[in-house]
């Protein structure tokens, strides 16, 4: 199968994630969309690794997973704190800082 198809899939996933970040209003869902974007980048890395016959891309994919896990830890801590003090995880409600 043509490896370029995976690149199209990865670009599609990345776009879905980016659109999701822009249009969704729940902080958790926005965060999940960002994770989708990171995983789309991972798919690109692995595909390019296959196309180029070089293993570095697959190593980066592992690094990205670890970094994404760290981001989940920090991100969920922040989102849960906001949720506890506001009883809402909507990013539209958090609008104290507008001039």
């Amino acid at each position, binding site marked *: 199968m043509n490896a370029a198809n995976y690149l199209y899939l990865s670009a599609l996933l990345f776009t879905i994630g980016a659109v999701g970040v822009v249009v969704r209003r729940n902080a958790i869902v926005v965060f999940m969309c960002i994770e989708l974007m990171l995983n789309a980048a991972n798919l690109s890395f692995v595909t390019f690794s296959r196309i*180029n016959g070089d293993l570095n891309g697959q190593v980066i994919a592992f690094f990205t997973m670890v970094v994404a896990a760290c981001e989940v830890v920090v991100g969920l801590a922040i989102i849960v704190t*906001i949720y506890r*003090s506001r009883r809402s995880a909507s990013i539209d409600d*958090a609008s104290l*800082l507008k001039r």
Partner: protein
Amino acid sequence: MTFNAPVLNYTLLSPILILLGGALLGVLVEAFVSKAMRAVTQLSLTVGTLVLSLAQVWRIHNEQSMSAAMGSVIIDGPGVLLQASILIISIISVFLIADTDHFTALAAALPGSEEERHSLESGNQVTEVYPLTLFAISGMMLFPIASDLITLFVALEMLSLPLYLMAGLSRRRRLASQEAALKYFLLGAFSSAFFLFGMAYLYGYSASVTYAGIRESIVGGSGNDVLLLIGMAFLTIGLLFKVGAVPFHAWSPDVYQGAPTPITGFMAAATKVAAFGAMLRIYYTVFANAQWSWSPLLSLIAIVTMLFGSLVAISQRDVKRMLAYSSIAHAGFLLAGVIALNKAGLEASIFYLFAYGVATVGAFAVVTLVRDSSGEVTDLNRWKGLGKRSPWVAISFAGFLLAFAGIPLTSGFIGKFSIFSAAYESGAKGLVIAGVLSSAIAAFFYIRVIVLMFFTDPSQDGTSVQLPSILTRATLIISMAVTVVLGVYPAPLLNLISHFSTFIR
């Protein structure tokens, strides 16, 4: 199959390793040292670690090596200068962070809850902020010397993740602070996704993750240019977000305003040095041969950033938001140094980063001092007549503002002059015109604040200037001294920078 153990040059890596070691020790201090001793132990550990690391940077300042960590980092003149700048800025920021009055007593407690009141009364402090700072600094130190994409990405996350948390630790106006943390985190993670996607396409273009490999592919020019362009664009989006350039600036006013002021100062100064350091290395060494693909667009972004930052700052009523927009404008000036792509541009950028970073920490140090009974006063109208009540504090704030405006006899003037002359030398005349124009606009609102402080009658609403603690005073004195000395007698530092500022490839 055999595995070869990696060969690491520990001496060259020691500035970063010392910081990481100090940060890990700090985590242990959190667990094992009694509450009464914790704050002072953490502070001395942190400052000691930073000074030790700075001494180590001094020891390796003449070294040049491509192979300190199997080709993953490059130790060279600009790298060492940037590392030293980050450390000096961090030390004076840590002096500000040491004033624990700015931080919540218990980050996990609900704002306004019984639990929060109890922990405030029992004198709890979030001393975790010190190890978090050290982790962030070690990421910043790694970011400008990284020379492959994996290291670059890991360093980016290492410097960002602690900062997201620290933005949410303010003692007063906690909801706003948590909101700042949320915005910073979501937008930061969003931009790292772009950064990573750009990395993937650069890797696809060149089949290599090292800077040298990517440069060879660009010089050879045999690869698929579409991949290169997508990669460069997305990687640049990630970097421009970190430095806060238009149109990726949306986070910075909110985060600057919501975060605890010492953290704002630290983040504004040190992150900028690290991010521009990485950007300079990438554009000067990796993308230099593809200049015609990125230079026009980046020039446009620089011009829009300068003008936007200066114009919007005029209408701000909050000191921290005003400084945020001023930092956006400065990001535009610094981009001019990246676009110049000549040795003068590199030297000017390094000088500018150091001078601007130190002045920024100083300016935020002043903001921490102006208070009323409920905490810091950041409304500019309530700063009226500050110069009559506390002349010294007002004079030092005026000094930092004049440095931001680029008035002669301050470090800002030398920085702006050298960066614009480097841009002019490289033929970017439009950039210089826009830069001078927006400097003039910026000077207007800086001077308006000075007029407000010195030539209006004080308001009677309980705003007062707190007597600075010894450490805050040290921050103010050091940053003021650096700002003035670099303005009056910049030659030694300029010579030092020009002696060291050559990227090895």
